[in-house]
């Protein structure tokens, strides 16, 4: 097995809000091996993006350890962190908003090099041109334009170029295709797959779309209200969910096939509980069809199932 690149232990992120302290991420642990793609899935408010940003140290997490091949990111000082940032980069959900509207494309992409103090102007320009070509844009046309002259898909290509110019080890993708149309989405997903091969990337992929996740991920972690429900390889998890929430999510996805009648989802309808005062015990219990008294009393711990995945549930759907 390849070595661990990113190790996250007991990550907690809290935000003060007007109504009280919100714990957006409550003790999440995972590791990411070199060359692997781990997807975090869940619905809005589950803490998946917060987790990704905590890994980016934007903002710094409340507690927990995050180490990138032995370098502790949480403990790193400002200066060290800035140096370490070269090795982990991020692309964002909104491709247009993530590019400064007042800057030229060439300035946007070369900025990481400039800040890192790498290469001279001529070499930087060359690097930008090569990378633009790699992500499928014509450098001659694109270099001197500004972001608003491009479509969403093209802007996402530019974002990818900016993230890759420092040749990072880890690429964090925060909902990179959810703002894009289906036909463009496929282009970007294919491009990410190509870049992963070419630059030997390890990816942390955040998405609410399970079909997209199925396509890109080696392993998947399902999140609900700040905690992991289930982590496993994408085949096992999708073909045979162990956590009732995973099953509910999967059953809710509409299938583009008229011969499949949509089934009612296996989850109690209702609102997401308030993250300020989450339910005791298992956080999913208020909407879980198989919840018992034990679920209210006792927080389910992550445990390994025989098939190699981990689930946090008192009544898993398989492997008891």
């Amino acid at each position, binding site marked *: 097995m390849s070595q661990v690149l990113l190790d996250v232990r007991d990550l907690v992120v809290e935000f003060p809000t007007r109504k009280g302290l919100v714990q957006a991420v409550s003790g999440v642990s995972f590791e990411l091996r070199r060359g692997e793609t781990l997807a975090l899935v869940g619905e809005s408010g589950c803490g998946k993006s917060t987790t990704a940003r905590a890994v980016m140290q934007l903002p710094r997490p409340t507690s927990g350890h995050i180490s990138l091949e032995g370098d502790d990111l949480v403990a790193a000082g400002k200066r060290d962190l800035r140096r370490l940032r070269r090795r982990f980069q991020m692309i964002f959900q909104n491709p247009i908003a993530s590019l400064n509207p007042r800057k030229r494309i060439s300035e946007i992409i070369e900025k990481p090099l400039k800040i890192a103090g790498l290469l001279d102007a001529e070499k930087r320009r060359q690097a930008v041109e090569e990378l633009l070509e790699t992500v499928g844009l014509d450098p001659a046309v694109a270099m001197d334009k500004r972001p608003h002259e491009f479509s969403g898909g093209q802007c996402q290509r530019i974002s990818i170029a900016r993230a890759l110019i420092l040749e990072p080890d880890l690429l964090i993708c925060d909902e990179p295709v959810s703002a894009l149309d*289906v036909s463009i989405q496929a282009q970007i997903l*294919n491009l990410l797959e190509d870049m992963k091969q070419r630059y030997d990337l390890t990816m942390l992929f955040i998405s609410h779309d399970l079909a997209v996740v199925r396509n890109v991920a080696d392993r998947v972690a399902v999140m609900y209200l700040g905690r992991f429900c289930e982590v496993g390889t994408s085949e096992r998890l999708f073909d045979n969910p162990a956590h009732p929430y995973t099953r509910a999510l999967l059953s809710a996805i509409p299938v583009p096939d*008229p011969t499949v009648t949509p089934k009612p989802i296996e989850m109690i309808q209702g609102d997401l509980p308030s993250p300020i005062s989450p339910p005791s015990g298992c956080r999913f219990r208020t909407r879980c069809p198989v919840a018992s008294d034990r679920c209210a009393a006792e927080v389910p711990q992550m445990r390994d199932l025989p098939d190699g995945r981990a689930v946090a549930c008192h009544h898993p759907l398989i492997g008891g």
Partner: protein
Amino acid sequence: MAAPLLELTNVSTHFHSPAGRVRAVDGVSVSLEAGQTLGLVGESGSGKSVLARTIMGLLPSYAEIPEGSAITFDGHNLLTMDRKARRAISGPGIGMIFQDPMTSLNPVMKIGQQVYEGMRHHFGTSKAAGRERAIELLTEVGIPQPDVRVDQFPHQLSGGMRQRVAIAIALACEPKLLIADEPTTALDVTVQSGILDLLQREQRDRGMTLILITHDLGVVAGRCDQVAVMYAGGIVETGSTRSLFARTRMRYTQALLDSIPRLDRPPHERLKSIGGRPPNLITPPPGCRFAPRCAFADAKCEAGIPPMQADEADSTHRFACWHPRDPEQATEEVA
């Protein structure tokens, strides 16, 4: 065969802009019988929402509907009616649900009032009776504690609940036709299926006609009788849902279906993406609008607009393509 409830004949909607005339909707013809559900599918910019607003009469002032367009609803031409008669149709005739429930409810008006306001205007219902009816409707759309919620403001509800309120508002005047414009796009996937189930139930129970606008072919597949696929302002393929999915003819429809990542495919499978991007609607390509992105396009496609033609097996299945896909053949190589 009964006369259709809604019939669009050669409907176009153009926007005036300094850069030129934007042909947001261009020559759309489609008809819908009472009690049917039509799925209107397309990517952003395909004109599906503009078409909905054209039917509903909600276009901005710089829009123009060119001569020759006709929208017949229940025997009336909506485009030539006087304003007052047209308003009498909005509500009891046609109701609408919008995409984002966070912005489609008035933030400073009580939920109950928003529900019964239409009834008061059209039927002269009293306030007390309207409030009673609003509570009934809120119960019907699955809102817990409707007698409390009726006096609350929208921000006190979650997104899914607000969309249920929006449905109650649309249902209040018992419309014959309900247009739902991407009703679940802004919602989480587990909430989405609840809303779609509700819409489907109401449609069936009330014998209502429903137009479901979405970008998600999956949503359409399980819940619509008919599908119309839009691309760059026009309908490129329409037919019964079963036939359209089983015997896809138009190259764009097929490309769209192919580009969707699917749960039943293995991980890391290369997706069949569509190259390029949708055309500029100020100066659209002269021929087939999909031609610049189509793997099967040739000189003919670039020169002339393909006419609508019927599928051999099902005459209600119509499509606009010079080189339609052979539905009997499983996969095809690029010609």
